């Protein structure tokens, strides 16, 4: 029963032969199959997002000791659908003086920039998007289109806050792209290809074991690229009146919202694919369908970790955020790249255990040295943020506070 082991290529072949039997030319069948596949993946991703929004609100509620959505349907599961219906029938408010084309193009481009990443993701050994030989660079380049969408939104809105928010957002996104791009060189070095399916196939041992520091840097910078807490200066509501999307209403705002959630999940999938082995797992060689489930399970775990970070950590200040990127992550990623390249080259590929051990030791050494340097640096450059006596809520505790301050 081939169908149960590997259903999707089975269906694709069946559809292909069906259309060929109708006498359509081969090229047309190919294009029709491409359009169908693209529609399926895009619509599937969008529908999955509605489920994710519910899950995120529910989990966020539990983290913060609330209930989360609980009225519409069992456990509030239809809350997102109700929200969607509402937002679909909301009025578009187009403020006076907007630049029409950029203003309307921005939400479309924001969603499209995230959706197009799904074109290259391998879902299982036999069912993947296109295994193009530059997929990794493609993912990063598409991120540039997302930045363009933010600029269009900020500039098109004819609003000072929107423009300021957009430039802050773009400054953050481009900054965190630097360590991300540098660190992604390491999986490419191990694999010898930029195709995502090749990268997954090379991960008999997941790359998180071979390059833990690179993995951590990539994780941090992909959270920052999402603009999620603790890096959510893009949508710091109380400071920037919600940032670049302030003038949007109705579904146009909803599109930015969808792009935000979809981006978070997409970066979890990319993280899983590059560092956690993607669809690799026991039994995929005989049952490729299992690969899809492994991918989903790993992705959900990564996504949960991102949510846990989002709902528990306080927000960075912008100078702290920039310092974290330029003074810690970028030098660290450069050092990691150099050390990994030299260590991996000096040990022959045949000695697998020695190679893994050496890479692990090198990574731990990098981490220890970086941690030590950081401690020394921050001790030497402590900035006094507050001066003078602070008002106290309970003056009777004053003595103990003073003791602590003098330490």
């Amino acid at each position, binding site marked *: 029963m081939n169908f149960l082991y590997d259903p999707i290529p089975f269906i694709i072949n069946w559809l292909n032969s069906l259309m060929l039997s109708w006498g359509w030319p081969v090229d047309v069948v190919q294009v029709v199959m491409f359009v169908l596949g693209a529609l399926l993946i895009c619509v599937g991703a969008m529908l999955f997002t509605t489920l994710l929004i519910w899950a995120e609100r529910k989990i966020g509620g539990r983290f913060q000791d609330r209930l989360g959505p609980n009225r519409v349907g069992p456990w509030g599961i239809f809350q997102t659908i109700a929200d969607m219906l509402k937002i679909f029938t909301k009025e578009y408010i187009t403020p006076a003086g907007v630049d029409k084309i950029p203003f309307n193009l921005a939400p479309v481009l924001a969603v499209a920039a995230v959706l197009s990443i799904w074109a290259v993701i391998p879902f299982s050994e036999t069912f993947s998007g296109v295994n193009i*030989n*530059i997929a990794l*660079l493609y993912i990063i*380049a598409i991120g*540039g289109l997302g930045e363009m969408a933010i*600029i269009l939104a900020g500039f098109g809105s004819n609003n000072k806050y929107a*423009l300021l928010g957009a430039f802050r957002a773009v400054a953050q996104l*481009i900054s965190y792209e630097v360590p991300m791009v540098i660190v992604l060189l390491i999986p490419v070095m191990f694999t010898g290809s930029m195709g995502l399916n090749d990268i997954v196939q090379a991960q008999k041992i997941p790359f998180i074991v071979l390059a833990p520091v690179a993995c951590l840097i990539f994780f941090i910078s992909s959270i920052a690229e999402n603009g999620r807490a603790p890096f959510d200066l893009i949508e710091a509501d109380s400071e920037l009146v919600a940032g670049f999307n302030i003038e949007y209403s109705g579904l146009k705002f909803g599109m930015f919202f969808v792009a935000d959630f979809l981006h978070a999940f997409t970066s979890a999938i990319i993280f899983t694919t590059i560092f956690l082995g993607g669809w690799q797992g026991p039994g995929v060689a005989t049952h490729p369908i299992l690969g899809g489930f492994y991918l989903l399970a790993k992705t959900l775990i990564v996504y949960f970790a991102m949510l846990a970070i989002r709902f528990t950590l306080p927000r960075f200040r912008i100078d702290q955020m920039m310092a974290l990127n330029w003074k810690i992550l970028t030098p660290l990623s450069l050092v990691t790249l150099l050390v990994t390249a030299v260590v991996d080259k000096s040990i022959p590929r045949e000695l697998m255990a020695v190679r893994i051990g050496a890479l692990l030791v090198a990574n731990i050494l990098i981490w220890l040295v970086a941690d030590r340097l950081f401690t020394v640096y921050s001790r030497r450059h402590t900035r006094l943020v507050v001066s003078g006596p602070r008002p106290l809520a309970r003056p009777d505790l004053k003595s103990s506070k003073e003791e602590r301050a003098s330490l």
Partner: protein
Amino acid sequence: MTPMQILFLITGVVILFSAVMAVSARKMIHSALWFVLALLGVAVVFAMLEASFFAVVQVLIYVGAIAILIIFGVMLTRRALEDNGKHINRATITTTVIVIFVFAGLIYSLRLWVPLLATTTPLSSDHLDVGSLGLAFTDPRQFSLPFEITSVLLLAALIGAIYIAYERKDEKK
């Protein structure tokens, strides 16, 4: 007309139109946005030439970095753009004549060249391997010197630009 040729013509028209808009738009920010569209069109042309690495690098470097830098520059100097003067020089007509002569000269000089009508067959996968470029960059008999020189050039650009653009707070006083 094959579908490929139709696609090329559409892309060409989009590139030329947005290039014209980029050099003639009155507001500088519009000019920059049209420039981005022209760059995306050039990326499509690169993809048609089966240079996929360069198509992606075009989007990554030009759209993702250079265009964003230009937009930052436009924003930093935006007050000067709101002036009511003309946005182009007086010499428009003269320049148009010169440019048309240059274009005609280019076409004329190409006229008799033999490989002009060359067509080609699709490349095999080992011709398209990005790794061969990497090997060429590290081979001292090929391009290892240009590779190192690009890093020196980038370093010079970084230091020079920071030196020019950056002023400390205390230097201003």
